[in-house]
């Protein structure tokens, strides 16, 4: 039998967080997994394939980072189960590659020794040798290999150096397991390991005697400073949000104009009829209304990528620990919550790095209240309407800031209450976080990650949103009537009837049946509400910048109740905003929460609580405002 036809062997990459496992995994397999200069970017097991120089296929497992084989957090537990072959559905590894940061050997070797002691064939990937050498460390890989009893491959995975040598080391037959010379007479105490590492590092990884101040140290003296550090953090956050809202407007206008021209072209090419109406009013208006927000989503993910890749994200988590403590959370909850401003799904996934199970549940619970990018289309539609002006003024920016602040403040208050109710953890968890050195940005990975996220957004627009747009168009078009009056046509349609049915429930919030129907359709994906309103108020795409949205705003502003009163007063617009700030209208998030929290009960509870909260908050705003005479 030829070697290539045999079942592939499994190779697991294990190492401390931020030792470069995923960079190595990508280099080995040609995959495109997300990497960042932040401990805990990989929170689940990833698999890929590579080939040895002899053409033999290997299955490569990229495990979440862990500090030891004593699992403390859920992601560490995955790594432990994977190397011991206890992870359901994953083959036990035939060989383990211990990825260690050469500049940090004393610490990384502790996990490596524990792994070597498992008795499996091992290879040590001595990563980041460039950083180690720059810091004056004198490495002796041959001595390391001799003492550990396994092959040692010096490498710089980020630059692709040492990959061929590593593949050579993975060829068959695998190297024999180490004879574990450091454990004598079955003694496996931590102390024996520590002494062995100390001796080994003196021999094979000598540090310069004097600790010199590195570039990272100098930058940290400013960025972690109790005063300047905060100024820098606020400046960074402000720049991120300002850039998202200002830079995105140019490409947004271009997309808008392109969609408008396309709609016009389709309209000109086809005879009038239901099919043309479906394409122009249903598909192009519905999908286009959401696609236009793609530039903002790309920018948000780009900035998060930049912050993670540079190493600043860990500093932000360090600074934010005190603030998060006020909400009963720790600095480790900062990254999940900040990521949730882009999308709650990666945010919820990132909670795996939180050691405390209860803190993790609370963070998952409140993450969807950090206003995600899917809410932006809704905000951009309503805020200018509230001020009776077009898009782009500083007043609107201020209101947007208020919207983000309201969502965040509520998330913190609810987190505090919930954390108090859940009680303390069985074993106390204290804040500890590695602050990685600042590194040059890995642009290729950042761009690939951004493209990945952008593509998933476009895919969503092409599937869920397209489907719902067609459904909505059908509901708003059929059954038909002979009347030419748009109001009457809508009232006669299925949509009009649904609207009339749910109107009593939404009227106390200041909405009519049409708005109620639009909200109802947005429970699967909140940004659908813009398409729904465009379809309900029968707005066609135009070929002018911002004109479509502004046309929709004109229609909404002109809409009235049957008695002639304007449909949307400032108060009912605020009520609508408040509803969208609080409601959990995203099916994929609910599915991810169920998986991460390990219970559908928690996910459904979160959905019901948030929907109820949104309804109550809207009701309070509208009825309270009316009582106060607004």
């Amino acid at each position, binding site marked *: 039998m030829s070697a290539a036809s045999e079942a592939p062997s499994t190779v697991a990459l294990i190492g401390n967080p931020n030792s470069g496992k995923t960079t190595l995994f990508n280099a080995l397999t040609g995959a495109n997994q997300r990497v960042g200069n932040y401990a805990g970017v990989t929170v689940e097991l990833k698999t890929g394939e590579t080939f040895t120089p002899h053409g033999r296929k290997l299955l490569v497992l990229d495990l979440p980072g862990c500090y030891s084989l004593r699992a403390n957090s859920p992601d560490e537990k995955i790594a432990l189960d994977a190397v011991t072959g206890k992870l359901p559905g994953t083959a036990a590894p035939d060989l383990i590659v211990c990825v260690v940061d050469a500049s940090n050997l004393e610490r990384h070797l*502790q996990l490596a020794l524990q792994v070597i002691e498992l008795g499996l064939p091992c290879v040590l990937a001595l990563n980041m040798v460039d950083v180690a050498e720059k810091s004056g460390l004198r490495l002796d890989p041959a001595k390391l290999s001799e003492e550990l009893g396994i092959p040692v491959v010096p490498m710089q995975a980020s630059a692709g150096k040492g990959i061929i040598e590593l593949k050579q080391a993975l060829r068959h037959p695998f190297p024999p397991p180490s004879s574990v010379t450091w454990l004598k007479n079955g003694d496996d105490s931590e102390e024996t390991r520590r002494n062995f590492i100390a001796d080994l590092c003196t021999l094979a990884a000598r540090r310069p005697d004097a600790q010199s101040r590195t570039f990272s140290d100098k930058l*940290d003296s400013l960025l972690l400073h109790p005063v300047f550090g905060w100024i820098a953090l606020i400046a960074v956050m402000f720049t991120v949000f300002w850039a998202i809202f200002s830079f995105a407007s140019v490409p947004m206008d271009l997309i808008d104009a392109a969609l408008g021209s396309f709609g016009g072209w389709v309209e000109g090419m086809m005879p009038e009829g239901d099919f043309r109406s479906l394409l122009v009013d249903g598909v192009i208006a519905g999908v286009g209304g959401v696609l236009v927000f793609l530039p903002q989503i790309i920018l948000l993910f780009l900035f998060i990528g930049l912050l993670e890749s540079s190493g600043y994200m860990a500093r932000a988590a360090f600074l934010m620990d005190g603030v998060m403590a006020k909400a009963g959370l720790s600095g480790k909850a900062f990254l999940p919550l900040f990521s949730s401003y882009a999308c709650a799904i990666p945010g919820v996934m990132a909670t795996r790095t939180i050691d405390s199970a209860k803190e993790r549940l609370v963070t998952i619970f409140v993450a969807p209240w950090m206003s995600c990018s899917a809410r932006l289309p809704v905000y951009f539609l309503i805020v200018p309407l509230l001020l009776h002006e077009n898009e782009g003024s500083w007043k609107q920016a201020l209101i947007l800031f208020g919207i983000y602040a309201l969502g965040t403040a509520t998330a913190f208050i609810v987190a505090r209450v919930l954390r108090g109710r859940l009680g303390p953890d069985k074993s106390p968890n204290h804040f*500890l976080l590695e602050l990685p050195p600042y590194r040059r940005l890995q642009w290729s990975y950042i761009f690939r990650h951004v493209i990945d996220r952008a593509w998933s957004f476009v895919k969503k627009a092409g599937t869920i949103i397209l489907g719902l747009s067609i459904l909505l168009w059908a509901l708003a078009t059929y059954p038909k009537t002979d009347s030419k009056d748009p109001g009457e046509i809508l009232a006669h349609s299925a949509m009009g009837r649904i609207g009339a049915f749910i109107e009593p429930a939404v009227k106390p919030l200041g909405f009519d049946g049409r708005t109620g129907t639009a909200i109802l359709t947005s429970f699967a994906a909140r940004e659908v509400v813009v398409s729904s309103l465009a379809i309900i108020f029968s707005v066609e795409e135009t070929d002018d910048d911002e004109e479509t949205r502004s046309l929709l705003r004109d229609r909404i502003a002109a809409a009235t109740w049957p008695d002639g009163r304007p449909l949307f007063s400032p108060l009912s617009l605020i009520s609508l905003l408040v509803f969208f700030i609080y409601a959990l209208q995203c099916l994929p998030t609910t599915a991810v929460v169920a998986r991460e929290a390990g219970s559908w009960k928690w996910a459904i509870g979160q959905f019901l609580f948030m929907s109820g909260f949104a309804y109550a908050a809207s009701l309070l705003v509208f009825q309270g405002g009316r009582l106060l005479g607004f």
Partner: protein
Amino acid sequence: MPAFTSTRQVTLNEVAVNCDVRISSLNGPACDRLRDLGFCEQMQLRKISNGRNLVCTVCGAKMAISRELAKQVLVSPVL
């Protein structure tokens, strides 16, 4: 100036910023976790900053740990 005399052991909390110290022992419930992170006996570390959480450099890595954890790290001066 470090807040200890040459022979006395103090907790990491009490050490002054920019001081190099050696870990003499670990004492408390989080010992294992601290050792996993490189805070092992005989390791030399430098305290970078004080505050709600401390920052220190240990075996080439910069770590931020809470004061509660730092209380469990007993250090002595580098001789």
